[in-house]
């Protein structure tokens, strides 16, 4: 569920958007994200039978920080681009985090948290029983 390559922003600032997904059984929601400081919030998973589960979404800081929540480091820049210079020694980080889908029924959508510190770049759904 990568956004299309085009002009404009390459990420969603999390503000309570609802993302419909192809209905199906999934085990994991993989999220490519960055956060302005450590962020621990809740996403809501909607299912075909009308049930909704809240699950934690935890993303570490993008600014020269460790993977506090045990995520996989997806990308790390060598430098940080500031408005008027390029700063060595400060890296920008993007994290690969995952969220479990514990309910054994068809997932239909994901409601992002109202948390503008969180930037979502891509979401990948892992089907039930599919190996990573």
């Amino acid at each position, binding site marked *: 569920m990568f956004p299309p390559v085009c002009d404009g922003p390459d990420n969603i600032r999390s503000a309570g958007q609802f993302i419909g997904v192809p209905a199906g059984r999934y085990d994991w929601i993989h999220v490519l994200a960055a956060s302005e*400081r450590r*962020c*621990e919030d809740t996403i809501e998973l909607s299912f075909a039978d009308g049930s909704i589960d809240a699950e934690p979404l935890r993303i570490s800081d993008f*600014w020269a920080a460790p993977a506090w929540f045990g995520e996989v480091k997806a990308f790390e820049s060598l430098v940080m681009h500031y408005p008027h210079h390029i700063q*060595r020694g*400060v890296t920008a980080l993007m994290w690969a985090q995952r969220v479990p889908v514990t309910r054994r029924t068809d997932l239909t959508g994901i409601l992002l*948290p*109202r*948390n503008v*510190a969180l930037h979502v770049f891509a979401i990948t759904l892992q089907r039930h029983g599919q190996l990573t």
Partner: protein
Amino acid sequence: MTVDVRARTYTIIGPEPEWWYRDLISCLQATFGSVLARAGTDPLSVLGAGWRFLHLPGDVRPEEFYYPCPVGASGEIDLGSALAPHHELHSRWWQPADEDDVWREVRETLAADRLVIAAVDNFHLPFRPAYGDVHAAHLVVVYGLDETRGVVYVSDAMPPAFRGAVPIEEFLRSWGSANPTDVKDAFFSDSRIGRRCLDVRLDATPAPLTPELLGGFLRTNVEAFTTVTVASTGLAGFNAFAAELVERCRAADAGALRELYPFGWGMQAQASLHGELLRNCGRQWGDPALAGAGRAVEAVAHAWTGLRFTGAHGLEDPRAVAADIAHHATVLHGKYECAVDAVGAAAARL
């Protein structure tokens, strides 16, 4: 003929100061941590022992190192005591007494083998990312002065982390900066630096941290959270702070959000350190409930992110973000309640 025989080089004895850093702390905790580490004390065990909520209306200043600190009986501001209420950590602000010799106190402190914590404006420091770009009030550790070579030795644990020589002229511009209002940093500019320095002392070596000792700290912390006082302290203080914050946003008062960011940093940093200490102790002592209480306190720190950054991004239109500010204040309140409950339960068994 007279000869100037004064020494011109002053440095601390031994190795350069240690960097002490965590990703949620500010230069305030980082610089105090360097002083504690040099004293042979684990900074986390001291800076992570206390956990409070205190808001002082009208007191918040646009500085990275702002931390709520009541004025003492004799008018002093002891940030050390505020950061480490269970230890003999103390500090006092000072400024050079003689405008014609602004280095005198720095020389004396270094000659006594003690570190100086200096307030600076990042705009003028070549190693800071904000150099030549953004004005912001910051703290660094000064560990040497070489007036012959014309350099000050500075240590800064905050990324990108720096330790080394800075030309005296550049340091003086930073140390004496007016730190003017800067639209690029509404949270840490517009606060005169005024060559302020902190003198930090650890007056007693901390006793080894045992379950009994930590239990006492935790019970005191929990009591402060659950006792209603005339000041904005504890859970009741947080509720009062949050209610006022939301009301000011609804009234389009951008000042409320300008204050939220620096104020929240101190509360967030403190919660992160306290949580880490409890989690570490729980693991070390085989006490999962204590470790879990630590994680609950860390969740408080993480919930501050949503509140602080909603405020930061909503600065242009406070009224538009009032509902989201209220939402994050409600979430944070819940995290505080859970964490106080968990810490109280863990403390009762220590």
